[in-house]
């Protein structure tokens, strides 16, 4: 039962990274693009962005129902970066919708766009920092420590910052690849292809930096990764897909589906490789035992009800999702 819940949590994490990530990334790409791209992006995002972000809510709900003390500790210690994420989410969602629905075109649109783009970049940085803080092991639950050690030091450091920028870059990459298939205009397509390649290179460099920073910060992430066969295999899969994706990006004809599936596999592979070495630890705690799935799980009765809700929920939600995405492939009558 516990394992099934963990798998669903992992899947929603991956789906949020892919769908929510592409959504955040679209805002980053827009910053470097023109008016026409802005229209394409708005059109592609508008029907699906809200649903894409519900994966995050799902993950949070699983966390606080199934592993309440993990949720409670995280939201206590990481109050500040979580608050930043929330502010980012509020700004982004509202600015995007206001831009889409405000009937007047004018100066207000520039403000909306500005807020939308800035928060599209900053929110993933903080998301990445939070994730970094969870694994770095500087989180302390000892109340006698000072404010700085408790609430700042765990997340404000070079490793977490690199994780943050890496996350933003990864999201931009996902969005660029996704957008390649969202336009019929060749020139625009080429632009997205160029963005895809650039962000792919940047993501790889930053990924490397994350490993280096982990090493520099005294974390064993790199060594464990390199000593775990399944994780290496995943990393190799992700790396081998790079030239393939590059190849399809260069093709004149649309190979959207290969591109999307390819990047999807790439990102999922990296995440799964990481899950593998991370499991079952959720938070590394300084000078104390780590918080794992096992030592924080809710009582069996709760897990059982949670699982029922999740399974029924997903059986309803997934066909809905597929339908939603397909509806927008239908040409308007």
């Amino acid at each position, binding site marked *: 039962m516990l394992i099934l819940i963990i798998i669903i949590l992992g899947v929603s994490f991956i789906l949020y990274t892919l769908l929510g990530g592409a959504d955040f990334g679209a805002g980053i790409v827009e910053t470097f693009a023109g008016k026409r791209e802005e229209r394409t992006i708005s059109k592609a995002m*508008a*029907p*699906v962005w*809200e*649903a894409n*972000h*519900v994966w995050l*809510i799902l993950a*949070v*709900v*699983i966390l*606080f*129902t*199934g592993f*309440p003390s993990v*949720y*409670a*500790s*995280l*939201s*206590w210690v990481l*109050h500040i970066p*979580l*608050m930043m*994420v*929330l*502010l980012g*989410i*509020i700004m982004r*969602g*509202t600015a995007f*919708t*206001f831009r*889409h*629905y*405000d*009937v007047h075109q004018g100066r207000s649109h520039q403000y909306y766009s500005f807020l939308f783009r800035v928060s599209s970049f900053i929110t993933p940085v903080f998301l990445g920092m939070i994730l970094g803080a969870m694994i770095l092991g500087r989180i302390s639950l000892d109340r006698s420590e000072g*404010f700085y050690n*408790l*609430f700042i030091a765990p997340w404000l450091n070079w490793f977490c910052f690199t994780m943050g920028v890496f996350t933003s870059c990864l999201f931009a990459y996902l969005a660029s690849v996704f957008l390649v298939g969202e336009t019929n205009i060749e020139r625009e397509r080429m632009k997205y292809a160029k963005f895809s390649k650039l962000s792919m290179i940047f993501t790889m460099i930053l990924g490397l930096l994350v490993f280096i920073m982990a090493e520099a910060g005294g974390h064993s992430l790199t060594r464990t990764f390199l000593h775990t066969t399944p994780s290496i295999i995943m990393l190799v899969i992700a790396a081998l897909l790079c030239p393939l994706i590059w190849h399809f990006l260069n093709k004149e004809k649309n190979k959207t589906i290969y591109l999307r599936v390819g990047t999807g596999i790439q990102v999922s592979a990296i995440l799964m490789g990481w899950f593998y070495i991370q499991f079952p630890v959720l938070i590394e705690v300084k000078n104390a035992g780590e918080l794992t799935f096992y030592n924080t799980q*809710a*009582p069996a*009765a*709760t897990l059982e*009800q*949670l699982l029922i*809700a*999740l399974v*029924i*929920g997903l059986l*309803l*939600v997934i066909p*809905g999702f597929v*339908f*939603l995405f397909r*509806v*927008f492939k*239908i*040409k*308007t009558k």
Partner: protein
Amino acid sequence: MTMPVLMAFSEWRWLKTGKQVYLDITKAWSKGVAIFFAVGAVSGTVLSFELGLLWPEFMKHAGAIIGMPFSWEGTAFFIEAIALGVFLYGWNRLNKWVHWLSGVLVSISGILSGIFVVSANAWMNSPAGFDWINGKAANIDPVKAMFNDAWLSQAIHMVLAAFVSTAFAVAGVHAFLLLKNRNRLFHQQAVRAALIFGSVAALLQPISGDFSAKDVAKRQPAKLAALEALYKTSKPADLVIGGLPNDSEQRVNYAIHIPKGLSFLAKGDLNAEVQGLDKIPKEDWPPVMITHISFQLMVMIGFFLAFVSLLYMVFTIKWRHVLMKKWWLTVIAFTTPLGFIAVEAGWTVTETGRQPWIIYGIMRTKDAVSSMPGLRYSFFVVTIVYLLLSLIIIWLMRRQINTIDEFYPTAKTV
């Protein structure tokens, strides 16, 4: 949860009659809904985090107990978001009835997700489904927790409240526009559609309120005593209307008293004893002033809207011409904000009325709040952000409303 119902209703009228005006109304409303839903969706995300950011101690214990309604709520919300995407962007892509069904689905999942959240709140008022042993929850039964004693009365009350407040707000805005030019079919039909739902809900609400009050009397005597400002246990107890409670003198100044009223309303018996605040240790008193005044405000508005609804029904059946009279439209326009004020007042009653407890009788609010120093700053920031958002939304809605004429031919004079 109300707007999707109104939209689906209007679209259904269009599908049945083929009249352009219903389609125009549906589309005009759907733009407003998209804006509200976006703010709602991001707020849903915010809410799921804020529970922990503000109340980590509460969530540590309560998460496993009330996570279940939240996971169902998540599912319902997910479906709502998907169906709304289909509804808003599926015009001309789908069979008309399939499109309409997506609107119905938005309505159903919206109502369900509201009910689930309220059920989690009801649990705080009426904790169930666990044993509290040495400061820890044991023998957790999430199903019992979800279907606690208060969930039904609170859920009904809130769903009705959502219908009353939103429907009257919608009717009010369109009535206001009708006052400017009474010959516009678009606004006439919009007022009608909204009031059909609003009036039925407003007439049912006092009944549900009575049901809730009896429930509170049974389970949370301190809350009842505070909202009625009943300082001394009385047999029979008077119903106190209005007035300013004074804690130190233990009396309510400037109030109207209805003899035996409270005994009857709370217990269904004119001579029943009603427990007052004197039976409750002072440290367990909720803030009487806020609770009492909010309660009075909510009840007053509730009865006023029920009265307006009754008039509406009478006029619709007997004197249709009154419905287009200037004074009547003014009354409807005046009701625009009332329902929302009543909803906020009602939440104030139920939340302050439960103080000093966060989980009634189990955990105190001060023990649940985050111990992070400087928590107030995040409170200020969120408050300011939401105040700003409210202002922007009001401004945006005004812009939307002012341009209705340009977009929809039926909104012009006929």
